[in-house]
């Protein structure tokens, strides 16, 4: 951090060549504008192209509400589960040496490297009517695929890495001295976790949760495979956007898309806040 500031100071000195800086900054702004801001603006413009009333009407539709509810439900189940799993996995990997540790670390990354379509198909193969367990679950009156449980499973799979990936490097870097000290001083493991571990990882954890939530609400590929696209029943927000688009309801499609875009922006704002907090707490710790 310190050397970086020094290098920048040197760039500011008279005589230093200025143009590379401007060119690079300009290029970055241009690329961000072209690939990020322009599409976002297009979504909003298209969404409001027929006025505010139609926008509200598009959102205030029975099926849109069902899609919003389902999306929130999926996130409400998936995010806590993956948070608990992420903490547990990161704890194991960062604090203990055991055989298969490397393999576990790689496995957690698996959903990142697998195409979401494959992720969805895996569940169809396992829980579909002709899958390994599918007919048994269907007979119990609790179908998995083409029903809400399948959507939750697929989303769970796709979002597994977010929290764990955030915590593993953080916890490895922090080391375990303070925790060992706490144990030596007689703290139980829960007390140690609550008073020592959690405060140290909280910003990283929050960061992971935010990313996990964003993906859980926005996942399309894997969910599309297991959903069955039943309106009002197994239709999440991203799938609903596709349906509306396919029905030539372009305004409605973009109106619903703008909800997802709004969610993305909110996520970014929260993420920046968390990053800022994290930097501050780091600063305080080093002082």
């Amino acid at each position, binding site marked *: 951090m310190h050397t970086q500031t020094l290098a920048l100071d040197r760039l500011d000195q008279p005589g230093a060549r200025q143009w590379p800086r401007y060119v690079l900054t300009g290029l970055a702004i241009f690329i961000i504008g072209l690939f990020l801001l322009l599409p976002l603006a297009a979504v909003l413009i298209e969404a409001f192209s027929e006025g505010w009333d139609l926008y509200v009407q598009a959102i205030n539709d*029975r099926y849109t509400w*069902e899609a919003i*509810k*389902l999306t929130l*439900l999926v996130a409400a189940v998936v995010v806590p589960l993956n948070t608990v799993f992420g903490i547990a996995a990161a704890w194991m990997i960062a604090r203990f040496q055991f055989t298969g540790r490397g393999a576990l670390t790689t496995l957690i990354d698996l959903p990142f490297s697998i195409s979401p379509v494959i992720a969805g198909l895996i569940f*169809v193969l396992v829980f*579909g*009517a*002709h*899958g390994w367990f*599918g007919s048994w679950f*269907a007979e*119990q*009156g*609790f*179908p998995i*695929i*083409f*029903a*809400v*449980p399948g959507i939750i499973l697929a989303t769970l799979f796709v979002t597994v890495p977010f929290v764990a990936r955030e915590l593993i490097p953080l916890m490895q870097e922090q080391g375990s001295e303070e925790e060992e000290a706490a144990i030596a001083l007689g703290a139980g493991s829960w007390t140690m976790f609550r008073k020592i571990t959690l405060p140290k990882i909280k910003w990283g954890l929050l960061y992971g949760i935010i990313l996990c939530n964003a993906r859980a609400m926005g996942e399309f590929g894997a969910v599309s495979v297991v959903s*069955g*696209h*039943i*309106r*009002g*029943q*197994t239709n999440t927000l991203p799938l609903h956007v596709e*349906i509306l*688009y*396919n*029905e*030539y309801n*372009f305004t409605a499609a973009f109106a619903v898309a703008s909800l997802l875009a709004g969610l993305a922006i909110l996520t970014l704002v929260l993420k920046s806040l968390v990053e800022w907090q994290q930097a501050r707490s780091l600063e305080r710790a080093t002082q």
Partner: protein
Amino acid sequence: MSFFRKPLLAFSASVLLAASVAGPAQAEDISLLNVSYDPTREFYQEYNKEFADWYKAESGDSVTIEQSHGGAGKQARSVIDGLPADVVTLALAYDISAIGERTGKLPADWQTRLPNNSAPYSSTIVFLVRKGNPKNIQDWDDLTKPGVEVITPNPKTSGGARWNYLAAWSYVLKKELGDLSKLDNPEFADEVKAAEQKATEYVTKLYKNVPILDSGARGSTTTFVKHGLGDVLLAWENEALLAVNKLSQGEFDIVVPSISILAEPPVTVVNGNVEKKGEGAVEAAEAYLEYLYSPVAQQLAAKHYYRPVFEHFADKEDLKRFPNVTRVTVQDVFGGWQNAQKTHFNDGGVFDAIYLPQ
């Protein structure tokens, strides 16, 4: 399940559904799932309301019909994999038969259960071209000319795409043989073989002109209409009429080829699924499909650009929109859908041999 009584969380909805499967048949509130193909969205949206009102008055039961749409092949695949369709209204008979064969959820003779091979409406394949027909596309032969981009979906997943392909094939056979009855006559075996060779060459060239294969008919229409790709869209007549009349008036023209195919999208009850929901649901599902043949529904079908089986129920104005087309049948040219599917679209079939993605 009415909207207000519907539980907040879809999760509990599926639990409720499970409970109603186990419990005694409740006749008051029935929820049915209609798994359909791509372009029927608008028609069923309107028909479902009509039917629910009529059925409520008729029997006192409230029926909510949920819809699922997609390429017909893909939709059939989903039902086979467990999508709990109570009725299927797909693009072609083969896909429905496949559901019966793989799951045993409907009888082999399902197509005889309703009039007209269980197809309450029919359609055909036409060409949609850009205004003024700049590439001067008049008939099937024009599609294979160099520089003509043809938009059609993937026959592996889409029903409409298979009708497109079979219509093209029929055109060549008819052109080469003159009389399609030669197909069944062993005397002309050599001539038929030569004609089939020509047809293979034709579809090979045709699909060389196809830049993208969407998974369903609706995807192809969007590609052509909204994204502006291609010179000609091979489309369901109803999709083409919808594009011309509703989407963007004055931007497209319909070209009717010299010969096309009689496309019959059939409907049937998936007994194995709906019976789990009880007597009331079975009755409602059967009524739902039978009512498709009623004057109201036939009129509605014509309004949404499907050719009704009973034309006299339709509005005269609506009927005027259907051009005169010579339509051959799958039975006459291919000996039924089972044969057509096996020869052309299954793995290792003609389509696999001729289609090379570029």
